[in-house]
């Protein structure tokens, strides 16, 4: 499980649709299908709901993996499905919405809120695990991310609001620092928690516009080329 999504409220979807009356509904067969927010069944339910409220549903379809680019053939199949629509309601994560907007000039509207990268900790209960900060700290914190699991994202230990293993922000929420402490202790690494951690380089995170990456990193130009 990776991208965790939740359906927007019907009022919010109605607000986005605005004057568009003919709607194509597009779901995603991967994360939203697993989270039951935008798979086959949810697309049907959304179409029925909108139909009952007066919208005309021109088509409904589920892309197998909405975040992957569609093949030429698949695009050919999608085009007629969107033809009569005035808007496309996409039941996928934000990346899925973004991809669908490459296939059409119609407004592509998110039916889901993209919440976080996480896992299904228990059936129907999802837990965030990654803030995509750009420089993974898990190695220094026994596999528990202080940015995600501490409500203040503290790097140097728990605040004064950690009580009985819970966070002051929500009595149901485990204190990330209690988790880190306990696991570091079990690993015999408590001593490392006495070191003052270096300042986080947030320039690798959300501070520089859309992040870009070439993977694998292209090799540097040969030294010989520079000399020449």
């Amino acid at each position, binding site marked *: 499980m990776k991208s965790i999504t939740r359906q927007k409220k019907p009022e919010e979807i109605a607000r986005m649709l605005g004057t568009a009356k003919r709607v194509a509904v597009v779901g995603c067969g991967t994360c939203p299908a697993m989270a039951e927010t935008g798979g086959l069944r949810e697309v049907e339910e959304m179409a029925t709901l909108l139909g009952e409220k007066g919208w005309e549903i021109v088509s409904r379809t589920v892309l197998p993996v909405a975040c992957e680019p569609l093949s030429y053939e698949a695009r050919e199949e999608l085009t007629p499905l969107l033809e009569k629509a005035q808007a496309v309601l996409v039941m996928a994560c934000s990346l899925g919405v973004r991809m669908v907007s490459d296939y059409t000039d119609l407004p592509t509207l998110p039916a889901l809120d993209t919440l976080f990268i996480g896992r299904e900790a228990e059936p129907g209960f999802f837990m965030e695990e990654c803030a995509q900060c750009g420089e993974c700290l898990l190695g220094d914190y026994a596999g528990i991310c202080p940015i995600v699991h501490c409500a203040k994202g503290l790097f*140097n230990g728990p605040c004064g609001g950690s009580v009985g293993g819970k966070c002051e922000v929500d009595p149901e929420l485990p204190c990330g620092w209690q988790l880190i402490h306990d696991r570091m202790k079990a690993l015999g690494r408590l001593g490392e928690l006495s070191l003052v951690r270096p300042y986080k380089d947030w320039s690798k995170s959300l501070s520089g516009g859309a992040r870009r990456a070439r993977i694998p990193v292209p090799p540097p130009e040969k030294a010989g080329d520079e000399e020449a």
Partner: protein
Amino acid sequence: MKSGSNLEKVLEAGYFAVTAEIGPPKSASARVIEAKGEQIGHAADAFNVTDHQTGVVRLCSLVACTVLRRMGLDAVMQMLCRDANRIRLQGDVLGAVAMDIRNILCLSGDHVKFGNHPEAKGVFDIDSVQLVQAVRIMRDERKFICGEEVGSEVPLFIGAVENPYADPFEYRTARLAKKVEAGADFIQTQAVYDVPKFRRWMEEVCEAGLDRKTHILAGIIPVKSVGMARYMQKYVSGVEVPDELVKRLEGAKDVKEEGIKAIIEIVQEVMEIPGVHGIHVQAVGWEEIVPEIMERAGLLPRPVL
């Protein structure tokens, strides 16, 4: 002397120090700060001004401390990692020194959830330990976090906080040691009601030798009413109010007087604990009670150095 602040002088001279908190108003009135300063200015060695405490917007600590400095009072400016990034924080440190503020208290800050703008984004670019370290390096090495030079002296007495009642209990002393290593000259603790637990923690602190590297000031929050005691017991994370205290107040004819008596008893017990160098009284919204408590605890007059 690192800063020459009154608080530093009092502590270095070996006196039992008293700091008191002044809560700024939800207004632009410097007069409110002045009035509080006039009312309790004689009853403590330095005055902390909170900075948007519990996430509620108020007149900022930097300016309120400036008002107190103009009155000749020693001020402790509180700085939060919640509301500013490293650029703003370091800039405010310079601003504080420019306005003759000589003490600074570095905190993470209460989570925005508890404030009056719960939808605000918490910044937390750096954390409180890193802030302590940054200010210490500004002072001792005249360098910003980026390594560039600071163009003047930064004489500051640096404070941090610790909560002996929070968890994981066995990590609290190590975390304190980290703050001291980062550069904390003094530590103000969360409110002490459960004195035996505080004593146990102080034993650990002394065993680790931290009492000789920093000055620990025990937090004191006067209790005005049964309702307040119950509220703190239930809703203020990390504050442990023993049932006995609540019962004692419930059974009292004059609750306010009983509350003052109980607090004075705590102050006197805390004064006897080895390694405790002072107290930090947080009577926010009830500042006028500070002189009476100090008088009756035998802590007035304050030393003039």
